[in-house]
């Protein structure tokens, strides 16, 4: 038997390919949307994952330091390190600022940490050049995407910082670039103001910020201790809020990115529905375009099965090609996005199943049209 789908497609090959690629771009956008969502989840956890702390001590009654603002005294660090089960503790600050260089505007999160602490704050796997900070002043480690080079000087506040290390793929929970400075420098940046601001504050009787505040105390616990139990003990002893690493990550997912991920989820669902409708419409139109041939085929005695097979095969092939080109498209444009896009094979596979089912569903429209067509109308009077 002659394969009608193959013959039809090769007869109007370029049109078919263009259609498949157009649908593919639509699917590619769906794939990217899913990737954006995955990327947000990944980024949200990335910083907490990188910082090798088991527990986070923050201001009482807050969900800090990311989901809510938190301020604790730096010397809380000493108190924490004496607690049962604690190996070491260290203070840390986070501050997001707007920066500008010749590559444009961007937001960076400045992480201030103690270079002498035993707790790794920079993930060594992500350090692609240079070293971590080992002086108490004027050294900085930056994300590669900020485009700063090793040895370059960056002006922050009133001072110049020398780039000593470069990291890749290290981002804040919001997907912004990271810069690491010493805790002392970070406190200075956070709490020293311009001369004008200091003057105007003083005239209001404000004595200037307290430079000995930090956003959180992070701590490592000794082997064999249960982080949750240690956290509960510290909460009772210090009247601070304490999160384990897992709790901190969950907090980030639930509080910080829940709404935006729901937003993206909604968007993705709508896009999938729109893609299905468009595929269905294309199949229906492709069938309608051939309705004359179909009724002639019916009139001369070709079975519904043979004709429907042509439509289903064309539909499935269209879905398949669209899916392939969608994935290629998504991978091609992935790098152009400023924030992380995580493309996972399992997502693509599930989408493929959805599109396959949708395509077959769409071809039912076509088949319905085939069965309904009256062969005697073929020749139109």
């Amino acid at each position, binding site marked *: 038997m*002659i394969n009608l789908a193959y013959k*039809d497609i090769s*007869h109007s090959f370029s049109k078919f390919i263009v259609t498949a690629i157009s649908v593919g771009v639509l699917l590619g956008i769906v794939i990217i949307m899913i990737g954006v969502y995955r990327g947000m989840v990944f980024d949200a956890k990335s910083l907490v994952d990188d910082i090798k702390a088991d527990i986070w001590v923050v201001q009482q009654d807050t969900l800090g330091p990311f989901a809510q603002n938190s301020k604790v005294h730096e010397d809380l660090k000493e108190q924490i390190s004496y607690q049962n089960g604690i190996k070491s503790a260290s203070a840390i600050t986070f501050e997001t600022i707007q920066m500008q260089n010749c590559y444009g505007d961007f937001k960076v999160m400045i992480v201030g940490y103690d270079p002498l602490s035993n707790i790794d704050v920079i993930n060594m796997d992500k350090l692609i050049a240079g070293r971590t900070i080992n002086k108490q002043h004027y050294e900085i480690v930056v994300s590669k995407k900020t485009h700063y080079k090793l040895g370059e000087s960056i002006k922050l506040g009133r001072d110049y910082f020398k780039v000593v290390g470069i990291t890749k793929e290290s981002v804040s929970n919001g997907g912004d670039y990271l810069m690491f400075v010493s805790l002392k420098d970070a406190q200075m940046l956070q709490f020293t103001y311009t001369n004008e601001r200091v003057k105007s504050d003083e005239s209001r009787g404000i004595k200037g910020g307290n430079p000995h505040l930090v956003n959180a105390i992070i701590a490592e616990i000794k082997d064999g201790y249960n982080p949750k139990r240690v956290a509960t003990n510290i909460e009772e002893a210090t009247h601070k809020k304490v999160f384990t690493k897992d709790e901190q990550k969950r907090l980030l997912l639930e509080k910080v990115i829940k709404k935006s991920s729901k937003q993206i989820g909604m968007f993705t669902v709508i896009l999938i529905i729109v893609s299905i409708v468009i595929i269905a419409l294309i199949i229906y139109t492709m069938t309608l375009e051939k309705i004359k*041939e179909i009724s002639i085929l019916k009139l*001369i*005695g070709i079975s519904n099965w043979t004709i429907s097979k042509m439509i289903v095969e064309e539909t499935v092939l269209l879905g398949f090609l669209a899916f392939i080109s969608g994935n290629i498209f998504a991978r091609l444009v992935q790098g152009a996005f400023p924030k992380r896009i995580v493309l996972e094979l399992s997502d693509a596979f599930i989408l493929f199943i959805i599109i396959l089912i949708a395509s077959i569903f769409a071809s039912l429209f076509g088949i319905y049209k085939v069965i309904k067509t009256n062969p*005697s109308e073929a*020749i139109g009077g």
Partner: protein
Amino acid sequence: MDKNAIKVENLVKSFGEADSEVVVIDGANFSLSKGEFVALIAPSGSGKTTLLMMLGCALEPTSGKIVIGDRIVYDNKWKIKDDRALRRKKIGFIFQSHYLIPFLNIEENISLLPYQNGEKPKVVKQRVKEILDYLDMGDKLYNMPSELSGGQNQRIAIARALANKPDIILADEPTAALDQKRAVSVVKMLKKITREQDVTIIMVTHDERLLPYCDKVLTIKDKKILVEENSDEHII
């Protein structure tokens, strides 16, 4: 020449319901034998296509009886389960336009039906070649319909109608789109087919000049079918 090909008794066809009912054929009676070349001539809108479609089981009559060969296909209701199987085994169609499938080449267009009938590729290929040679189109096997002229495509359409070795060919104005010279050549070809392959052909036409080629002439008058036998000396 007297074996039954088509027999029609009290065939009625109306469109619409109740108030808006329009009767097109009102009690047709005629019978045609195997190998007859029959013309059907009547003004536009008098029901020629309607009659042909009913004979091809592609349109349901209102009442009456249709016998194809020795098989009762309709007796106030359909007596066959699969009208399309009957068409692809016993009936060939030719239309005013060739209606070839544009995305199939000539060979594929012609072999579609035999393949659907489950015939072997070798047999089909052989037959398609024979038919095309017979119609003087042997060198066009791998052309697309869009590459041929109107007259050539009409001959391919005839080839397609022959491919399933039908008992009956229903031809709805097959020469209407052709000039006089080509029309005559198509009619001669159809006649040759009736003679050599024992096929009954009903050919709808508006052209009285083509009537002398036929054995019988059917006309539709007052919604009834009149049959006129061409006497032997008139037949060309």
